[in-house]
């Protein structure tokens, strides 16, 4: 459009600009409406789906985990609030709160034994023992979900990865890289010796002893001087298989 001089020209220009704006707004509105409609459809289908497969979601941990994934993709968090449609429909909120309380309980009960660091597998095992009478199975994924909800409490519940295993930490102990490496090493036999740490990690003996002493002080390790070879062993209840059978009430 060629710009023409004069008031008339300016007015025409302004009018044309208004027209364009209106048109643009219309197009945008139609698009958002469409999107909203699609999302609403998706949501209602998700709800239908949830309603239909309510029992599967409750009972089957694998199904539950996939359902969670799907919800996350559309921005629905069934655990976000205990009120509202999702909680009412599925009772999922209660389920995870209950798990959370039981997890805290187990962590506290075993803390004296393991120093507040527990193998995720062991935690699940104890959780299942405790929930024996409940229907439905609890998976490690459920445990992780419940623990992630506990973070809100600011109580320092955290999942850390050591080697291939996941450990759940219920004390505010900060583990540094050295400690992690020792824990990883200990996973093989449940214990390490100073010599072994020096050799396998190529550390100076001072570094090894220092890290082991810290772990000892934190209650994460126990010493064992009873072996025939006379070498002190440092056992880690949080990674050793024997502790997996220690009952909560022992």
């Amino acid at each position: 459009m060629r710009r023409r001089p004069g008031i008339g020209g300016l007015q025409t220009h302004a009018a044309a600009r208004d027209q364009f704006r209106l048109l643009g707004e219309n197009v945008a509105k139609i698009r958002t409406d469409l999107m909203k409609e699609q999302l609403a459809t998706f949501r209602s289908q998700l709800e239908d789906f949830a309603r239909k497969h309510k029992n599967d979601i409750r009972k089957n941990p694998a199904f539950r985990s996939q359902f969670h994934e799907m919800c996350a993709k559309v921005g629905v968090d069934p655990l976000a609030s205990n009120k509202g449609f999702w909680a009412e429909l599925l009772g999922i909120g209660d389920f995870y709160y209950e798990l959370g309380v039981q997890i805290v309980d187990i962590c506290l009960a075993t803390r004296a034994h393991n120093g507040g660091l527990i193998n995720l597998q062991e935690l699940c095992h104890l959780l299942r023992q405790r929930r024996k009478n409940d229907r439905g199975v609890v998976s490690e994924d459920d445990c992780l979900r419940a623990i992630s909800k506990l973070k809100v409490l600011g109580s320092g519940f955290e999942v850390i990865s050591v080697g291939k295993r996941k450990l759940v930490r219920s004390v505010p102990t900060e583990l540094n890289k050295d400690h992690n490496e020792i824990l990883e090493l200990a996973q093989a036999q449940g214990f390490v010796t100073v010599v072994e740490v020096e050799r396998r990690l190529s550390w100076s003996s001072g570094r090894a002893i220092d890290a082991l002493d810290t772990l000892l002080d934190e209650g994460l390790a126990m010493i064992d001087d009873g072996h025939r070879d006379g070498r002190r062993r440092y056992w880690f209840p949080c990674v050793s298989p024997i502790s997996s059978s220690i009952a909560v009430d022992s």
Partner: protein
Amino acid sequence: MQKLGEFKLPHFFNYPPYFTLQPVRDTREKQIQLWKELILDYCKTQKTFVIALEEEFPLFTNHVIERSLTHEAREAFLSALVSEGRAEWMDKGHRKCLILWHRIQDWADILIQFAKDNGLEDGVVTIEEIRSGTESQGTDLHGIDRTILNRALKLLEQKGKLVVFKGTSTDDEGVKFSV
């Protein structure tokens, strides 16, 4: 689970570090607690009254994991029981320990119950009858350690619930209840 005869051993019994006295206080306290419970439990079910530190005692060695409690650890666990009134050293050198899986007061109550159950409220019974007679069969009194029995009797005597009298020889003592 590992067993000693009919006795079920706790899981910690198979975890080697529990056989070494732990240097860190919190860990050691937990360790001592577990051992205290185990010792009392075992002595109660086995009716063991005396533990000699330098002799073989089934709980002090675990052959499966090849661990044995050091003398220091044995003394620490028993001392913890002593400080709670659940055990007493029998000598100054702490070589022998009397285990009170019932406290003396509880033994005294058991004696009173024994008298009532057998209609001895005003009756007479010999000490040997209490320890090995048919009346005490099946009760905790059967086979009770002589020292513990004497202590419980003395406690009741002080309260005027009974009188101990001597017979013709020393191993012929009798008790007259007056409950």
